[in-house]
């Protein structure tokens, strides 16, 4: 195999208990690079169409890329690829930390997991070998305890662990996979997929190396890029402040989700913003190979949650677990974050379903009978802090909320779907589209449901100079923008972190230097587009149509309250206008299906 890759894929069949190693498909690597591209390709080829995501038919893939484990800055992430139990679409969920690099040091570019174990197991991967081991004594434990016990069992504190908690075990569709204790594959319910397979954890330790064609030249290049393109004004916020600093900005822009997306500003924003988090700051932590090191380890200094230590809370947690639930106490949000981390819940979706339940409660659609006696009103810390446990263990209303906001609204009924804020079942992240209309298109067309990491027009509309209320140019921006879908696809094929605002030029330089292939900017642009189209084919195969590329009722009908976007909605007319333009630019038909010509052009047929 050429440079960057270690050249092997690990196959695990949990039903038969067998593991095997095979060569990485080099032809696919050339077409899709790694990460998002290769993960999507393996998933597309190996998943039975219309498989139930929580059945043994679903496939769970871990995939790295050719830069992972090298000195390439901010480029040692990796992701899980599977069919989402939350959205029934393609799911990719990216993770920082160290496990991706460790997997390559252990001799594998990726892992393809199929079937279902009869009893709880964990997977132990080390130096070219893999073993399925009994996890009876781990089942039921929280993630931090699981991580610790596995390291103790294996007698090596260097072992990296990806694990699920009770939420994943109990098939909560908003369950995450936590890696290296504080890093999550948060979105889309990957934790429930592991739970459905009786797979409690994946432990990895490697002592082998990752090679590139010319290591001295490679290090020179990565040093140069680090100096001139990473440690620069565009990215240094990650180092100096981290994501909590976004909260001041989204508040100012009027796009901070508040009170279950009723409002775009939070009157107590000062209590939960970057400065408020800084008061609890202990020290920074980086993922493997990252010169930015955006993570803030914090310890709550005062109040009822004093002493709570976590890596975080990050912006999304502060927004969805904070302002969206009307919680104005950083200590409480930190505790909520810790609970979600340990129980294995996505802090974004969990915050959103709690906010949804709070609105249901205030509207009288659910009562204390449903909430285990909790006074589940907006801003009530005592009730809020109990909710992650109810959801993870599926107790009382938690059993309904564990299904995600879309299914929860179906169960609760009484018109609650009018304020269930999601796309394709995936709850919204922390950017209100009524104040950034391009985000409505980004959410509607995202491959895994509402997501801020497929395209991020906020950058141009709220923090830049584009009009946030007109549809003009937004389809182009979502597809081809500097933070658009095609660039993100290429970036995540490598797997480079979101927080390094890399451009096409350096994407191509890094990809070429690692693989030894001569990849131009144009090549990488085609690869980005190819990946997005392949994933669209996956979703079309799963039954997705134009009507799924939509926005929720609240966004289209309820005027936003407060802030710069006060009174605004995104009408379905606006959405359809952008969608028509989007499909046309994509070379898709009016129903959002890639045309034969487009697929041929991209070498997908």
């Amino acid at each position: 195999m050429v440079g960057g890759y270690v050249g092997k894929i690990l196959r695990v069949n949990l039903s038969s208990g067998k593991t095997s190693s095979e060569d990485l498909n080099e032809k696919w690597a050339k077409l899709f690079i790694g990460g998002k591209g290769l993960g999507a390709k393996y998933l597309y080829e190996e998943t039975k169409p219309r498989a139930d995501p929580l059945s043994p038919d679903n496939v769970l893939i871990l995939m790295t890329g050719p830069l992972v484990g090298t000195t390439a800055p901010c480029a040692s992430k990796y992701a899980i690829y599977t069919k989402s139990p939350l959205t029934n679409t393609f799911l990719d969920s990216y993770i920082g930390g160290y496990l991706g690099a460790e997997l390559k040091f252990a001799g594998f570019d990726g892992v393809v997991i199929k079937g279902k174990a009869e009893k709880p197991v964990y997977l132990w991967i080390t130096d070219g070998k893999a073993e399925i081991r009994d996890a009876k004594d781990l089942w039921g434990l929280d993630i931090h305890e699981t991580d610790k016990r596995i390291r103790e069992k294996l007698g090596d504190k260097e072992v990296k662990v990806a694990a699920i908690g009770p939420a994943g075990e109990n098939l909560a569709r908003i369950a995450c996979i936590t890696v290296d204790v504080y890093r999550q594959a948060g979105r889309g319910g990957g934790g429930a997929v592991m739970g459905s397979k009786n797979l409690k954890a994946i432990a990895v330790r490697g002592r082998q190396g990752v090679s590139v064609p010319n290591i001295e030249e490679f290090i020179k290049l990565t040093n140069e890029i680090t100096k001139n393109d990473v440690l620069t004004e565009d990215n240094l916020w990650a180092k100096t402040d981290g994501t909590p600093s976004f909260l001041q900005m989204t508040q100012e822009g009027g796009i901070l989700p508040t009170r279950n997306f009723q409002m775009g500003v939070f009157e107590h924003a000062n209590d939960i913003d970057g400065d408020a988090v800084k008061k609890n700051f202990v020290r920074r932590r980086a993922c493997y190979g990252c010169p930015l090191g955006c993570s803030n380890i914090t310890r709550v200094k005062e109040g009822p949650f004093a002493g709570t230590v976590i890596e975080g809370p990050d912006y999304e947690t502060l927004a969805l677990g904070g302002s969206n639930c009307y919680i104005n106490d950083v200590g409480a949000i930190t505790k909520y974050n810790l609970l979600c981390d340990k129980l294995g819940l996505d802090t974004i979706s969990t915050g959103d379903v709690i906010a949804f339940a709070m609105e249901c409660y205030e509207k009288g659609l659910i009562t204390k009978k449903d909430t285990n006696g909790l006074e589940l009103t907006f801003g009530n810390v005592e009730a809020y802090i109990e909710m992650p446990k109810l959801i993870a263990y599926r107790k009382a209303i938690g059993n309904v909320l564990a299904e995600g906001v879309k299914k929860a609204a179906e169960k609760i009924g009484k018109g609650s779907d009018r304020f269930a804020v999601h796309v394709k079942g995936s709850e919204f992240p922390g950017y209100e589209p009524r104040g950034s209309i391009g985000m409505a298109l980004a959410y509607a067309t995202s491959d895994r449901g509402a997501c801020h990491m497929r395209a991020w027009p906020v950058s141009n509309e709220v923090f830049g100079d584009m009009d946030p209320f007109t549809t003009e140019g937004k389809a182009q921006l979502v597809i081809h923008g500097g933070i658009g879908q095609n660039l993100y696809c290429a970036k995540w094929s490598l797997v480079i972190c979101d927080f390094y605002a890399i451009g096409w030029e350096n994407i191509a330089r890094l990809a070429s230097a690692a693989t030894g292939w001569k990849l131009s900017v144009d090549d990488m642009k085609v690869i980005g587009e190819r990946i997005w189209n392949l994933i669209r084919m996956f979703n079309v195969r799963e039954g997705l149509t134009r009507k799924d590329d939509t926005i929720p009722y609240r966004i289209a009908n309820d005027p936003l309250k407060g802030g710069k976007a006060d009174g605004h909605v995104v009408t379905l007319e606006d959405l359809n206008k952008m969608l028509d333009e989007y499909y046309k630019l994509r070379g898709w038909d009016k129903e959002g299906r890639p045309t034969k010509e487009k697929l041929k052009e991209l070498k997908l047929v």
Partner: protein
Amino acid sequence: MRLKIYPEKCTACSLCTAVCSARLVENFNPSRSAIYVESLLPEKIVMRPYVCIQCDEHPCVESCPVEAIVEDREHGIYVVDKELCTGCGACIEVCPYNGLRLDPVGNYAIKCDLCRGKPRCVEICPEEVLKMVE
């Protein structure tokens, strides 16, 4: 010349181990690097590198039964002669600074030689955890 470590600044990014192993074994492999990053999260908020600091006492030199740790007079440091080293681990046991490790492939002790002049770990560390001092 020797390395001074400021452990409280370390973010555990491990870039030091990547460039170190690149020089020693021509690939990226933290397990074969002379510098080692320890992270004890979440049990303890500890992240720090361990590497030979070329201490004055150098008990490693005295502990070696085959005299494989030899002086490099040009740079004023002690280095491991891989040809002589038997991988017995005596130096690793005796080092109070956790400064040496056993190479998992070559069966010899890995000891920092300051890149014989300009340490790459110092150059790449984004947090100034490592400094060269007289």
